[in-house]
C-alpha cells in the first residue's frame, strides 16, 4: 500500500497522520513532545504506523474464514489493549533499570540504598495494577507512557510515604530523572514483536477453542506482512525548523492547520488552534486555503501551557481542570497577564477565601479572551468556526469560547469540535504530501526513520 505522512511537531504533543492514496486517513499517532524533537516525531510516526496495522488487522480479521470473521474483528480492541499493556510492562522494566543505573551516577544520591527497594516495590505495585489499567473500557487519563507510569509511580510513592513514612520527594525525583531516557528507549523496541506478543496473549485467553485464536494469529501475520510504502511526507508545527527534513518537505503550520480543519469540516471558514505554546487564529476560503491569520507565541500567557501551569499549582491533572471550572458559581476576574503571576494571584485569591472553581473559571476566561482578540484581529469569527488543538479537550474552555462567540458574533455561528481536532495540523501536512505524491514529486522519509517504517 502506498501512503503519505504528515507530521505536526507541536510544542507539547507531536502528531502523525497517515493517508492512503485515496486520501483516506488510515493511521494516526500522538506522543508528547517533551523530549528530543526528532525522537518525538519518530514515536508519533511509529504510533501512526501501529494504528495502520490495527486497521489492517481489523480488515483482514473480518475476512477470516469459517465464520470467525466477526469474532476476530471483535477481538481487535482487546489486542489493542494487550498491545498497550505489553508496551507498558516493558516500559516499567526499563524504568526500573534506568533508575538503578542513574542512581549509581547521580550527584544527589542521598541514601541510594534505602531508595532502591522502595522503587522496586513501587514498580511491582504498578505491574500488579497494570492489567486493570488496560482492561477493556477502563477509563484512562492518557495514553502516554509518561503519564500512566507517572501516575502509578506517584500513587505507589504516596502509599509508601504514608504507610512507612518514607520520603516522598527523592522517590519521585528518581522517576522524573529517568523518564526521558525510558521514553527514548521505547523507540528501539521492535513493534511487530510486541504486537505479536499481544496477539498471542489475546489468543491464549480464548477459552472456547482454537478456530478464533488461530484466525486471529493468522490475520495478524497477514496484516503485519503487508508492505507499506510511505512515499511522501510533510513536516509542520512549532519545531519544524529543527527537523532534518529537506526544505520542500516543511510547510507553514498555519497553512496545514487551515487545510486540515477544512478537510474535516468543509464548511469551515475560521479556525482557532490553541496549542501548548502558541495560539493561532486562521481564516480559510472555500478551498481550505488560508486567507488571513494571526498568532501569538513566545509567552505562555494565553496558551495551553498556561492551563498546565495552573493545574500544577493546584496539583490537578490537566483533564480535571475544565470539569472543575464548570462547577463555578461566578467568574472571578483575573488581572494578571503573566502565567507565573496568574499562579501567584491564584494562591492569593485562594488565601482570601475565594472558591477554587470560581477562580479557575476566571482563568479559563482570561485565556479565551486573548483568543477572542486574536480572532478579531485575524478577521473575526465566520461561519463555520472550528476549534482545534489540545485545549479543545477542555470542556470549560469550549464553554467559555461558545459564550464569547455568541456574545460577540451572534448565535448563528456553528462551532465545530472533532475528537480528532488535535490532528488537524498533521492532517493538513499529509494532504500537502498527497499533493506532492500526485504531482509526482514525492519526498522520502529520512533514512534514520527506516526502523519505524519497517514495523
Amino acid at each position, binding site marked *: 500500500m502506498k501512503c503519505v505522512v504528515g507530521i505536526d511537531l507541536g510544542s507539547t504533543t507531536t502528531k502523525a497522520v497517515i493517508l492512503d492514496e485515496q486520501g483516506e486517513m488510515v493511521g494516526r499517532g500522538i506522543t508528547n513532545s517533551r523530549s528530543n524533537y526528532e525522537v518525538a516525531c519518530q514515536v508519533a510516526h511509529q504510533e501512526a504506523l501501529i494504528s495502520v496495522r490495527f486497521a489492517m488487522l481489523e480488515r483482514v480479521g473480518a475476512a477470516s474464514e469459517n465464520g470467525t470473521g466477526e469474532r476476530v474483528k471483535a477481538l481487535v480492541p482487546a489486542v489493542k489493549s494487550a498491545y498497550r499493556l505489553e508496551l507498558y510492562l516493558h516500559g516499567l522494566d526499563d524504568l526500573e533499570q534506568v533508575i538503578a543505573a542513574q542512581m549509581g551516577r547521580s550527584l544527589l544520591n542521598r541514601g541510594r540504598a534505602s531508595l532502591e527497594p522502595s522503587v522496586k516495590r513501587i514498580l511491582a505495585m504498578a505491574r500488579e495494577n497494570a492489567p486493570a489499567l488496560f482492561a477493556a473500557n477502563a477509563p484512562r487519563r492518557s495514553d502516554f507512557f509518561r503519564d500512566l507510569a507517572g501516575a502509578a509511580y506517584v500513587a505507589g510513592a504516596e502509599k509508601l510515604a504514608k504507610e512507612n513514612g518514607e520520603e516522598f520527594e527523592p522517590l519521585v525525583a528518581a522517576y522524573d530523572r529517568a523518564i526521558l531516557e525510558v521514553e527514548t528507549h521505547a523507540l528501539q523496541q521492535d513493534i511487530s514483536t510486541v504486537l505479536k506478543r499481544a496477539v498471542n496473549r489475546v489468543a491464549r485467553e480464548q477459552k472456547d477453542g482454537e478456530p478464533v485464536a488461530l484466525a486471529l494469529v493468522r490475520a495478524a501475520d497477514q496484516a503485519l506482512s503487508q508492505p507499506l510504502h510511505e512515499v511522501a511526507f510533510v513536516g509542520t508545527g512549532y519545531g519544524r525548523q529543527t527537523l532534518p527534513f529537506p526544505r520542500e518537505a516543511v*510547510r*507553514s503550520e498555519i*497553512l496545514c492547520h487551515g487545510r486540515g480543519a477544512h478537510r474535516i469540516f468543509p464548511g469551515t471558514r475560521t479556525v482557532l488552534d490553541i496549542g501548548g505554546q502558541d495560539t493561532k487564529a486562521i481564516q480559510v476560503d*472555500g*478551498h481550505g*486555503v*488560508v*486567507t488571513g491569520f494571526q498568532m501569538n507565541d513566545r509567552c505562555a500567557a494565553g496558551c495551553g501551557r498556561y492551563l498546565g501551569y495552573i493545574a500544577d499549582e493546584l496539583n490537578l491533572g490537566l483533564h480535571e481542570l475544565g470539569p472543575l471550572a464548570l462547577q463555578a458559581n461566578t467568574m472571578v476576574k483575573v488581572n494578571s497577564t503573566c502565567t507565573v503571576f496568574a499562579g501567584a494571584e491564584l494562591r492569593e485569591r485562594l488565601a482570601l477565601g475565594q472558591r477554587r472553581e470560581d477562580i479557575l473559571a476566571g482563568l479559563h476566561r482570561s485565556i479565551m479572551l486573548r483568543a477572542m482578540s486574536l480572532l478579531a484581529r485575524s478577521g473575526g469569527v465566520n461561519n463555520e468556526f472550528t476549534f482545534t488543538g489540545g485545549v479543545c479537550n477542555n470542556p470549560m474552555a469550549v464553554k467559555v469560547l461558545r459564550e464569547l462567540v455568541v456574545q460577540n458574533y451572534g448565535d448563528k455561528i456553528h462551532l465545530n469540535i472533532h475528537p480528532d481536532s488535535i490532528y488537524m495540523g498533521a492532517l493538513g501536512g499529509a494532504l500537502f504530501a498527497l499533493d506532492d505524491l500526485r504531482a509526482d514529486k514525492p519526498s522520502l522519509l529520512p533514512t534514520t526513520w527506516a526502523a519505524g517504517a519497517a514495523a
Partner: protein
Amino acid sequence: MTTTTTTVKSEKEAQKDRSQARQKEMIANHFKKLARAKEDGKKVVYTFVPGNLAELISALDMLPVLPEINALQSGMRKRSGAFIQEAEKAGHSEDVCTYVKCDLGMLKKGNIGPTDEPLPPPDLLLLSYTGCFTFMKWFELLREEYKCPVVMLHVPYQAGGEITQEMRDYVVAQLRDEVIPVMEKVAGKKLDMKVLQQHLALSRTAEDALVQVWESARHRPSPIDGYFGGVYYVGPIFSSFRGGQDAVEYYKELLEETNDRISKGLGPMTPDGVMPKEKYRLVVEGPPNWTNFYDFWRMFSREGATIVSSTYTRVGGLYDTGFRHDPDKPMESLADYCLGCYTNLNLPSRIDLLEKYIKDYQADGFLINSVKSCNSFSVGQLLILRQLEERTGVPGGFIESDLVDPRYFGKANIENRVQSYLQMLEARRNGGR
C-alpha cells in the same frame, strides 16, 4: 548564474549604477556643503520630508537638513540601535517614535551625519508639520537642545478627503505672514519671487519624470521595484534636491534606464541582481524597515515578488494623482503640496488610493508593513486591510516591524509570515490547492 544572464546583468548593473552613482555623489556633495556651511556663511534649516519647502529654502540660499533621512540612514548603517538607547537613557520612553529617538541619540553622540561628517547646528527649525503630530514634539525637543528660532507651519489635515479653499488660504497666509518673513530674517535676504519660480519649474520637470518611472511598473514584468527600489528613486525628490538641476538630471537618467529595461523585458534590480522571474506583483502600504532593509527586501525578491507600487514612496508628494509644483502659482502650489502629501490623507482616501494602485498595477496581493513607531501610518491599517480585501478581492498580508529600532525586527517571525503569505498566494492561484 548562467553566462547569458551574466552579460545582461552586468550591463544592467552598470546602467543602474549610473543613476545610483549620481545620487550617491549628489548626497555626498550635499553633506560636504553642510560640513562647510559655517565657513561658507550658509544658513542651515532643519525640516521634515512630508510637506518640505525645498524650493523656498534653496531660493533663499539656505541648506536643508532632514532629520528623518539622517535617522533612516543611521538605521541602514546599523547605528540606530545605539542612538535609540542613548535617547532612552536620557528619559525617552520605549513606546514612542524611534525616528525621534534615533535623531536625539545621534545629536547626543556628536551629531555626526551619515557621511561621517559633522552636521552643522540649525539656524532655523522649519516645522512644516504635515500629517503627523510627532513632528511638532520632535522640534520642541530639538529647540530645547539648540535654542534656535523655530517657525511653524500648521498644515490642516484633509479630514474631508479634499483640500478646501479655507485650508489653502490658512497655509498661504502662514507662509506669507510668518514663515517667509522668519526665513528671510534668518537668511538675511529677501525672497526673490523669480528665483522661487525657477526652482518650482525645475521641480515640475523632475516630478514629470518620476511619475513616468512609477508608472512603468504597469509593465509585465515590472522594470522597477516600487517600494524597496522605490525608496532610492524618490530620494532626491523627497529631500534636498527638489527644485535643483541635479534632480532634473537624475530623473532623466533614471527614466532612460527604466525605459531601457522595459525594452529588454527585464525585471527590477534586487540585492541579488536582476530578478529572474516575476512571480508575484504586490502593492505595499507602510514605511519599510531600515535596520534590516536588505534582509527584508530579499524575503520578497528571492521568492519572485516585485512591489509594483507603494504608498510610502508618496509621503514626499503625491504626484501621480496630478499634483505638480507650479511656477505660475508659487504660494498656492506650495500650500497644495504640503496639504497633499500621503501622510495628510484621511483613512478613506488612503484606502481609495491603495485600491487604485492594486487595480492599476494589477497586483496579486498587497502587504501592510505596520511600523511600531508611527501612529500616523499605523492606526487604522487593520481596517485598511479589511476594506481593501473586501473591495478588491485581493488577499492582504500584515506584518509588523519598526523603522529604525532593530529590537522590533523579528527576522524569523517576519520571514515566517511573508512566506506563509506568499505560499497562500501561490495556493490561491492554483485554485484551492
